[in-house]
């Protein structure tokens, strides 16, 4: 075998079978003598993107990743054990110490929406029942969090059996706009059979791909650019510019990636789409591949979304059988295939360059930009990466044209937006609204406030977003209005807090979230998140901050915004700063 040092620990039959099944016998184990120098390195990288699936298989088989199991994976994929260990320890869903008892682990969300719905009580209740509980960051089921019933988001990580979300067994009742024909993105949700290609076609499915093929790639890129569509993940980058840049790259393999690693606390819109209209994501990604000239489609989905993963895989399989994917995808004359990769519990992997690193089998650490993904993305090759909501808009654009698309929304924010309503609202859920709808109207759409009924604050855009107060109810939901008034739409989170909620407790949790989720690569973020959290804990204990500590809050924030590598560090202090500015924190002068 190659020149890797692998210890004597060996895998047992269960582990070997699990890994081999996950890798599907799709490559040959390298066993001939080979120096692991340059040539070996490139060979090594060739298999490395299978590391994450292999680690998932080990974790699922035994409830942990054992030294013997890791050795088997390392030998199979030619990954140095130290590096594979570094990858395994990066993710929340993997453990590398032997559990005292092996069995299902119930992950219970402790982030804001669930926190104020009573996840602390739920955790105590489960533990009293002897359930193995893991306190989890946001699980993307915020519409289920309800202080009136005490329900909070849960996800069960299986051992020997599949991962599951028990609430998925119930009929999905939390989409309140079902059957509304005026919806552009969610009109099929709750209407179409999400497991059936035939049903999808009956509801207008794959008409957009046919239209795109008839238009040709350049015209699709032009339409997307003319429509004014911008990325819905938070950065709002113009999608047309991104696609044109990738389309212009020649001579190297190209990729389109659906960023389904929806992890921003308070965000669950993409999950609702993927679970209830998975073919739409597959079709839209196929159009992205056609328009940019990419043959390789990837779906990177967070590990805590088992139903969405299964539905997307089913959709891909049916599309392959129907010739809508494959060597001549939908008769386009182009090859296009889609592979799914599951994340393993790391918020940072929603950052596009961290996602690439994770998918390639490395630690999910963001990379410096420039170079940008359009030239150096996945495997350092040209890549267009979009989230499902952004992609869904393209289905509309190619069918009704850029002008038709622009008939909704405002000049600078055309189209519609998916908003994730949660917190103290009567009917939490995902809502599709036209850009320009005011925040007050949006809250009314969700049935108005519950709890005390007196609005204290709204968290816009998630933990990386910012708090606003009742004076913003007249703010139209558009990119430009949000920017002008110093807040953000981010990933579409609108989380309502009424005045009986202890905001300091919420802020401490937000600080803890960033402390737990920082990848640790760059100093400002690795240490800054810890120092920010310490400051908030002191605030909670003391009820106020001394002037010196108040100064620290600003100093920490400034260096994280200025000097961190990626958007995580740039935004990790936003929520707390905005809360202080709004005067939500007693004892801290704004």
């Amino acid at each position: 075998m190659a020149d890797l040092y692998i210890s004597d620990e060996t895998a047992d039959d269960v582990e070997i079978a699990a890994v081999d099944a996950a890798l599907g016998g799709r490559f040959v184990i390298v066993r001939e003598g080979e120096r692991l120098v340059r040539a070996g390195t490139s060979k090594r990288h060739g298999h490395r993107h299978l590391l994450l699936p292999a680690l998932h298989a080990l974790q699922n088989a035994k409830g942990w990743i054992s030294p013997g199991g890791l050795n088997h994976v390392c030998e199979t994929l030619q990954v140095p054990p130290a590096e594979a260990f570094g990858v395994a320890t990066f993710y929340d869903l993997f453990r590398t110490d032997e559990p005292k008892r092996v069995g299902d682990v119930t992950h219970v969300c402790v982030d804001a929406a669930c926190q104020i719905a009573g996840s602390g009580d739920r955790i105590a209740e489960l533990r009293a029942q002897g359930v193995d509980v893991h306190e989890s960051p946001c699980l993307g089921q915020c519409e289920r969090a309800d202080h009136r019933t005490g329900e909070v988001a849960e996800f069960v990580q299986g051992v020997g059996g599949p991962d599951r979300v028990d609430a998925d067994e119930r009929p999905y009742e939390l989409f309140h706009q079902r059957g509304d024909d005026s919806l552009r993105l969610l009109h099929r949700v709750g209407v179409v059979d999400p497991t059936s290609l035939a049903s999808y076609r009956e509801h207008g499915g794959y008409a957009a791909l046919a239209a795109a093929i008839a238009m040709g790639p350049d015209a699709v890129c032009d339409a997307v650019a003319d429509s004014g569509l911008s990325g819905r993940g938070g950065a709002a980058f113009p999608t047309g510019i991104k696609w044109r840049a990738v389309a212009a790259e020649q001579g190297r393999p190209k990729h389109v990636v659906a960023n389904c690693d929806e992890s921003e606390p308070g965000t669950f819109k993409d999950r609702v789409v993927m679970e209830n209209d998975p073919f739409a994501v597959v079709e839209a990604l196929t159009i992205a591949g056609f328009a940019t000239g990419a043959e390789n489609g990837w779906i990177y989905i967070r590990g805590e979304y088992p139903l969405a993963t299964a539905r997307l895989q089913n959709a891909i399989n049916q599309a392959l059988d129907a010739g809508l994917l494959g060597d001549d995808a939908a008769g386009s004359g182009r090859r296009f295939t889609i592979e799914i990769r599951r994340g393993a519990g790391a918020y940072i992997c929603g950052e596009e360059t961290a996602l690439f690193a994770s998918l390639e089998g490395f630690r999910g650490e963001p990379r410096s930009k420039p170079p940008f993904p359009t030239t150096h993305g996945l495997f350092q090759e040209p890549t267009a990466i979009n989230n499902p909501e952004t992609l869904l808009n393209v289905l509309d654009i190619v069918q009704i044209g850029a002008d038709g698309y622009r008939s909704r929304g405002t000049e600078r924010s055309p189209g519609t937006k998916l908003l994730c309503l949660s917190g103290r609202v009567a009917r939490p859920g995902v809502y599709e609204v036209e850009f320009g709808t005011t925040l007050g109207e949006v809250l009314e759409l969700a049935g108005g406030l519950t709890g005390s009924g007196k609005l204290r604050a709204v968290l816009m855009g998630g933990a990386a977003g910012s708090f606003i107060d009742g004076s913003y109810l007249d703010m139209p939901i558009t990119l430009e209005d949000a920017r002008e008034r110093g807040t953000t739409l981010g990933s579409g989170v609108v989380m309502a807090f009424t005045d009986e909620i202890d905001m300091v407790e919420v802020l401490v949790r937000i600080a803890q979230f960033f402390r737990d989720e920082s990848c640790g690569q760059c100093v400002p973020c690795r240490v800054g998140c810890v120092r920010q959290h310490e400051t908030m804990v002191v605030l909670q204990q003391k009820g106020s901050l001394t002037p010196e500590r108040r100064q620290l809050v600003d100093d920490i924030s400034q260096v994280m915004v200025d000097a961190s590598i990626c958007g995580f560090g740039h935004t990790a202090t936003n929520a707390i700063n905005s809360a202080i500015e709004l005067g939500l924190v007693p004892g801290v002068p704004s």
Partner: protein
Amino acid sequence: MTATFEPTVETTVSLTIDGSTVEVPAGTSIHKACESVDIDTPTLCWAENLTPVNVCRVCVVEVEGQRALVPSCARAVEDGMVVETDSERVRHSRKMVLEFLGSGVELDQAPELQKWMEHYGSDTSRYDQYELPALKMGEAPKIQDNLYIRDYDRCVLCYKCVEACGDDAQHTYAIAVSGRGFDARISTEFDVTLPDSACVYCGNCIGVCPTGAIQFKTEYDLRSVDDWRPDDQEITRTVCSYCGVGCNLELHTQDDTIVKVTSPADHSVTSGMLCVKGRFGWQYVQPLDPPTRKRSR
């Protein structure tokens, strides 16, 4: 070694650094451009003989038109770029990065960093005023053999040792970053001891470590009895006698005893990297007394 900034075409670009016009070859890093006009920039994770990873963020500068500060070690100059190396934002970031590091790990064996901390007014005591003490690395030294020790209480996670062990020099991959966030550590798989890992004891990780987190056992022993005296040490350059490659060695001697061995980072043969023989195989010059050159592997 990947010569990242070696220009492929002989063109020059013109940029402005702190108000002065500077002309450098295309592809030069901002850091190198600053150096060419005698502007000193603090660095930590950067080294001449390693690929820039730009994780420490201590070398950041302000570039006009860029929202965030940029790492000067890894960003190539562009024509017309306007760079500020001593603006208020730059000074604040450098001060805070150093302060953050000093608040979590021991930096008393990193004189270069101490100098910069003083320069920028970093005050690590600000974090210890809390009733809740500031979290530290809090690691005990790992002493697993007679050749070198790892004291992760001094580790700033600059990734240099990982690079030297891996793609940038040794291709051994014995260590990597494990864990996440503040819990991230340099580690072997499952934290096994070095003799049980892929480590070949080239010691290149020692050569690149900027804070003494990885150091010769000889140095560690002398330091622990307060007898490490760099000012009294003599450095003698010689050629390694083991094979025909011609690696240059720098023998550091204190009281006529070899206490450590390095190689110049700019040497054409080694680029600062050695193998186990050159790095550690000098006891035949001065046999230990009593002979304890027992390797546990």
